């Protein structure tokens, strides 16, 4: 078969099983858009800003496990995509971004809409390519998908000069079935000896805790994690990125850990004598002060990326491999072996943990006559029966969603953790809804974040992706205000906007339904009414308590046991317990 470059791109995407291509046209990709016009296999989703395309494709990948695919033009199209590429990179999300480039002969001449995309994205991609020969186009695309989806996943950019996609040059096309690269062979199985050592440590631990992260979701190993955890009967905590890998409503789950983790999770980490990190990367939001991190614990770490191991925290038993086969192997060893955890020690450990639990660190003032953001999330959980896919933006609302909406399944909680990109939530919800049209999708956001990609409301209408936008409107960049309250004597420097749009009118202008809620008693009925509008996107603007803060909080530079707790009816302080 002889095809031109543009046709090769589309045919390759088809062969990769790509359903959606999130994109925005421009000069350098006109040949490609012409090829898109002449096929129906890959559905193109026209966003309103290239950042929206990257977040939508990224979230599609997070929700489905399949790579998200983006197409942008050269120059401003390419630079607009960079924030979204970096967002995916930080959270290890598989994505292929095709960017147009100026024609080969004019590269380097400051041609119209030329930017060095390979240079600009180099620090925020897993890999990138500049295609210089149409004969290598198909193989390069194959490599891009292979690299993006294997090992530690990540975004891959394929920069294609305009002349490479010219309709005038046709070359034989055959999409490679497989690629192998001598320089890229990610580990899959863990080292047998290390796994044995890990099991020995595990069964002999007195105060163990399982600390699992996004790697379990990326590696589709939730089932194995659940089995492993239940066999051992150990407490388990998840990172922000790992939520849902272990059921959030299960009694062995002690909640999220880290800066805004639960009291019991952080105390258990601090006091433990053995932690097993599974697909988690000891991020600074998780560890707090490094020199005081888990002072009594030995550390086992399973990670597919050797560079994640002993990067910030020294590991005693490193296991380089994919979570799924490693956990399978560990489960086998536990099943075969006679050694079992010490029942007495475990009982004492759980007693201790239950005392920490009794602090009731997530309790808040339920008598307030203002809308408490936590209450909105709890009601959202009930109205959706815990079954929705929740996307979020970045800020206090993100933390409340993570704390008050327990996820029982993986790929239900879609948020930007590593880069913390405001503007992520709305395009993400569109990407998810396209993949799962029959599942409820809600975007939890704040009045500042939502304005960063608000234009995608128009995309939601065009592609009929009915989502529910839960705007926790505290008239503050709440997360910034909270830090200013705690660390800058409440000098609220530019952490609020003197003008906020009328979101109800705005939603209506974009062709959707808008609602504004000011009283706690209206929260539940409004949510019910909104979710009853099955085929409409609804923007619900909740006027929440402006002064509410996210607790618990480990302030920057502090250790796990040094948490600021909320004082509210129903909570106990540490001291009261002792």
């Amino acid at each position: 078969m002889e095809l031109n470059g543009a046709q090769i791109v589309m045919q390759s995407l088809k062969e990769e099983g790509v359903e959606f291509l999130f994109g925005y046209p421009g000069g350098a990709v006109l040949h490609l858009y012409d090829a898109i016009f002449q096929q129906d296999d890959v559905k193109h989703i026209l966003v309103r800003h290239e950042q929206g395309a990257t977040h939508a494709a990224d979230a599609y990948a997070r929700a489905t496990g399949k790579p998200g695919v983006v197409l942008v033009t050269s120059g401003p199209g390419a630079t607009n995509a960079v924030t979204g590429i970096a967002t995916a990179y930080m959270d290890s999300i598989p994505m292929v971004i095709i960017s147009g480039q100026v024609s080969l002969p004019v590269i380097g001449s400051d041609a119209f809409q030329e930017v060095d995309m390979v240079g600009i994205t180099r620090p925020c991609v897993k890999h990138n390519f500049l295609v210089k020969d149409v004969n290598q186009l198909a193989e390069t695309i194959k490599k891009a998908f292979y690299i993006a989806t294997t090992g530690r996943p990540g975004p891959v950019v394929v920069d294609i000069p305009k002349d490479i996609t010219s309709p005038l040059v046709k070359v034989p096309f055959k999409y490679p079935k497989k690629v192998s690269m001598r320089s890229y062979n990610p580990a899959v199985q863990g080292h047998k000896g290390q796994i044995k050592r890990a099991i020995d440590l595990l069964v002999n631990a007195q105060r163990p805790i399982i600390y699992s992260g996004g790697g379990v979701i990326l590696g589709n190993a939730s089932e194995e994690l659940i089995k492993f955890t239940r066999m051992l009967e150990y407490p388990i905590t998840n990172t922000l990125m790992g939520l849902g890998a272990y059921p959030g409503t299960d009694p062995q789950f002690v909640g999220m850990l880290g800066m805004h983790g639960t009291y019991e999770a952080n105390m258990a980490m601090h006091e433990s004598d053995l932690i097993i990190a599974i697909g988690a990367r000891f991020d600074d939001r998780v560890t707090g002060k490094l020199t005081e991190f888990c002072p009594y614990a030995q550390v086992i770490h399973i990670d597919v990326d050797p560079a994640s191991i002993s990067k910030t925290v020294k590991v005693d038993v490193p296991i380089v491999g994919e979570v799924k086969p490693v956990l399978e192997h560990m489960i086998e060893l536990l099943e075969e072996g006679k050694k079992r955890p010490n029942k007495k020690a475990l009982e004492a450990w759980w007693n201790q943990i239950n005392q920490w639990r009794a602090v009731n660190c997530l309790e808040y003032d339920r008598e307030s006559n203002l809308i408490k953001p936590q209450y909105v999330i709890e009601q959202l959980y009930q109205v959706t029966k815990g079954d929705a896919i929740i996307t979020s933006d970045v800020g206090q609302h993100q933390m409340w969603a993570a704390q008050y909406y327990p996820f029982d399944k993986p790929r239900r909680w879609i948020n930007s953790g590593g880069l913390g990109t405001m503007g992520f939530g709305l395009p993400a919800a569109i990407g998810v809804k396209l993949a799962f049209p029959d599942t409820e999708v809600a975007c939890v956001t704040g009045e500042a974040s939502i304005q960063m990609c608000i234009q995608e409301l128009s995309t939601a209408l065009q592609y009929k992706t009915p989502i529910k936008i839960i705007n926790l409107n505290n008239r503050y960049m709440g997360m910034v205000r909270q830090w200013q309250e705690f660390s800058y004597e409440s000098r609220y420097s530019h952490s609020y906007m003197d003008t906020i749009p009328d979101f109800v009118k705005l939603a209506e202008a974009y062709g959707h339904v808008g609602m504004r809620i000011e009283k706690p008693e209206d929260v539940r009925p409004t949510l019910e009414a909104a979710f009853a509008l099955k085929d409409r996107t609804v923007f619900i603007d909740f006027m929440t308590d402006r002064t509410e803060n996210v607790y618990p909080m480990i302030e920057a530079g502090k250790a796990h046991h040094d948490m600021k707790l909320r004082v509210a009816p129903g909570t106990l302080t540490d001291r009261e317990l002792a």
Partner: protein
Amino acid sequence: MRHMIAILIENESGALSRVAGLFSARGYNIQSLTVAPTEDPSLSRMTLVTCGSEEIIEQITKQLNKLIDVVKLIDLAESVHIERELMLIKVKATEHTREELKRLVDIFRGKIIDVTSTSYVIEMTGSTDKLDAFMSTLDPAHLIEVVRSGPIGISRGEKGLHL
């Protein structure tokens, strides 16, 4: 500690900038970096001298290995190895200094490879220390130009870095 890392990398445009970019983005230090194609023209060999604590060197080698273009690498500091650096020096060679310079070059087993009535170009190879020692014997006032290649290295014995 000082480490010499030898890297086999795909001989592709941009590969060098990935390595250089990694070092600047992660704040690692590069003392010297040399690169040239190998006997297999699809591969380049890079020699990188860096320094840092054991933890930092471990991260550097892991991060380098993670670059898709990097095929293989070794930290030469982990084994007995030989290092050589090439230096070319242009010095003023006047009537009074010519003989003395020639003697010094001989002692250090260097060569004079260009001669004019007023100057010499001296070629010298050896360990970085040896080249430093030679430099310290020269009067800075006589130096016109100095160019050093940065060291390259190879391990002793039969084992080698190849595919």
